[in-house]
């Protein structure tokens, strides 16, 4: 199996789906000739031509609104936002229409579009290039919100997102676009949207995370084992919404001690929903209050101070040890 970065794996997913299905259309700013600013769509215009890899004018709402029309007509547009910080121009189109047209039309129409956007910190970029606003989308009924954590699941989830009959917001953790490689099979692979995944088995506590924070979370789990002899159950959400709580609840009932890790701000963040589900479904199994290891409730600082904002291994280990001491 070839070893690939997440960028290459996403490119593979787009390429194979476009080969398989001529209703898959890639569109966005600089996605064609330039291959996307992160090169996720690199070479697609050579393979499929400018009719299927569309360089659009610079207008995010226009891109999203046009994608909605394309999807209603029966195409499967995969539109790219250059950075999540510019995707809020599309909020109106996505909230008012993409997420509702199935409901509004009582099932007559649906919007099988994917809106891809790189998000999160870690790339020494300018303002508006480092936020984690996944809850904006996760709060909207009718929408799906997916975040991969590595090349292999990124490829599998993007294929599933393209085939999904509902609109999917697909956030790509750009800090790990090229940070590591994984074996990605050439043969087709999908991963169901709306299902979390256990990536490490343990009985002493539960660590829940997703996206770029999976790496420090797994490193923290390893450190807890090596230095403290503690075995952590680690769960990767993969889909933020619709949130699958079955594994979370099962794990919390087993360990009684849970920390949720994300780089989005804490208040009303994805962790808040995780905590609520655990309180509803595993309350009497909890041995300690659920910990949230998250970004602070501030604008993410420019990159020189970013390391203090983002949860890292030490903060995760610290939270875990407090949980275990409780």
């Amino acid at each position, binding site marked *: 199996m070839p070893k690939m970065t997440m960028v290459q794996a996403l490119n593979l997913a787009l390429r194979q789906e476009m080969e398989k299905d001529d209703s898959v259309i890639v569109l966005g700013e600089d996605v064609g000739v330039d291959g996307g600013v992160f090169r996720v769509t690199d070479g697609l215009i050579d393979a499929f031509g400018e009719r299927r890899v569309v360089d659009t004018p610079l207008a995010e709402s226009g891109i999203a609104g046009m*994608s*909605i029309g394309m999807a209603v007509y029966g195409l499967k547009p995969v539109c790219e936002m250059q950075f999540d910080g510019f995707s809020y121009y599309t909020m109106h189109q996505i909230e008012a229409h993409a997420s509702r047209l199935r409901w509004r039309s009582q099932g*007559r129409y649906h919007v099988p579009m994917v809106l891809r956007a790189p998000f999160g910190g870690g790339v020494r970029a300018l303002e508006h290039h480092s936020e984690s606003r996944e809850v904006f989308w996760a709060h909207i009924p009718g929408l799906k919100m997916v975040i991969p954590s590595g090349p292999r699941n990124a490829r599998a989830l993007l294929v599933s997102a393209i085939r999904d*009959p509902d609109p999917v917001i697909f956030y790509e953790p750009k800090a790990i676009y090229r940070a590591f490689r994984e074996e990605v099979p050439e043969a087709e692979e999908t991963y169901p949207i709306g299902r979390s995944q256990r990536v490490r088995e343990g009985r002493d506590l539960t660590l829940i995370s997703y996206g770029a924070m999976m790496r420090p979370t797994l490193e923290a789990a390893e450190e807890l084992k090596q230095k403290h002899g503690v075995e952590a159950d680690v769960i990767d959400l993969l889909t933020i919404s*619709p949130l699958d709580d079955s594994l979370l609840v099962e794990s919390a009932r087993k360990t009684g001690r849970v920390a949720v890790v994300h780089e989005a701000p804490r208040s009303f963040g994805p962790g808040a929903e995780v905590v609520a589900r655990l309180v509803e479904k595993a309350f009497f199994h909890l041995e300690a209050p659920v910990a949230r290891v998250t970004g602070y409730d501030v604008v993410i600082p420019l990159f020189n101070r970013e390391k203090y904002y983002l949860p890292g291994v030490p903060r995760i280990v610290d939270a875990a040890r407090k949980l275990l001491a409780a």
Partner: protein
Amino acid sequence: MPKTRIALPEAIDYLSILHEHGGVDPDLEPVIDGSLLLKLHRTMLLARRFDERLLSLQRQGRIGTFPPISGQEAAHLGAVADLRASDWVVPAFREMAADIWRGRPLESIIVYNNGFNEGIRIPADRNDMPISVPVGSQILHAVGIAWAMQYRGKDDVAMTFFGDGATSQGDFHEGLNFAGVFQLPVVFVCQNNQWAISIPRSKQTRSQTLAQKAIAYGIPGIQVDGNDILAVYAAAKEAVDRARAGGGPTLIECVTYRMAMHTTADDPKRYRSDAEVEEWRRKDPIPRFQSYLIAKGLLSEDAVKAEEAAVAAEIQAAVERAEEEMKGLGDPLLMFEHAYAEMPAYLKEQRADFIRFTAEAQKEEKHA
């Protein structure tokens, strides 16, 4: 280097064919089959009388808030009259005559405006989009549909509607720009009814016309007398034919007037004079069209009376059917449907909890 001048289109055409008392400019009169003219007349009359009936139903509390269309029948009906069934209409929310023309049953309009989702469902044999409430946002959907039509090699056309207020929205400009860049088969129809709730056209934009916005996007634009169904029909036909033939998009500004309120929750007396409304009443598109049809020998005073009676009976029957249908509607569990293709687990839990709660509440009520 000297300062030079870049030549741009300096003028926008204004098209008006029917005179206020039904006379016609013979050079501009479109060739329209007599039966089609009578069908247009019938639909205008039906939409007007139905609009009036909806207003009285709303005042009696039998339906909820709705946006009346009176005065704008020619502007939107004339635009869709030449469309094929396979073309797509992407409406705003003040195009009821066009909606009826495209096959919307009257009772579904009552059902929808009485707060039942079932009323908005588009039948399987019709492609049009449901109404879109957020001003101007639907324009982009028509652009996407037109893109898809072009990609699939169809010779169909997408037509979208919006008001004068929408031309201030970003989505209007993005839509025209995208359609111009990709040369898409889409027709943008602006029903300039002079008022965006309380904001007059003069406060919406400094531009002399709305049609001239097309110039900035490199596409044709035309202003028409929107209370003249012949002018609207002719301008729309030209735009539709051009789009179908691969000639790209057009912006049509229909100058018309919202004779009633923005919605039934609005009181126009707060911001406009009765004299202004009276002035526009003289330009009412229906009597103008009737005078034309009578002069042409297609209609008579007696025939108009007969049409009025037929339309009234049709409306009464629709009201009765709707009220009968609504007795069977209202299953609260419908609110959990159509969120996703498959209901997520947590939504099934919420639905089950609703069923449990409702059953227990009913039991307690019986007990008490």
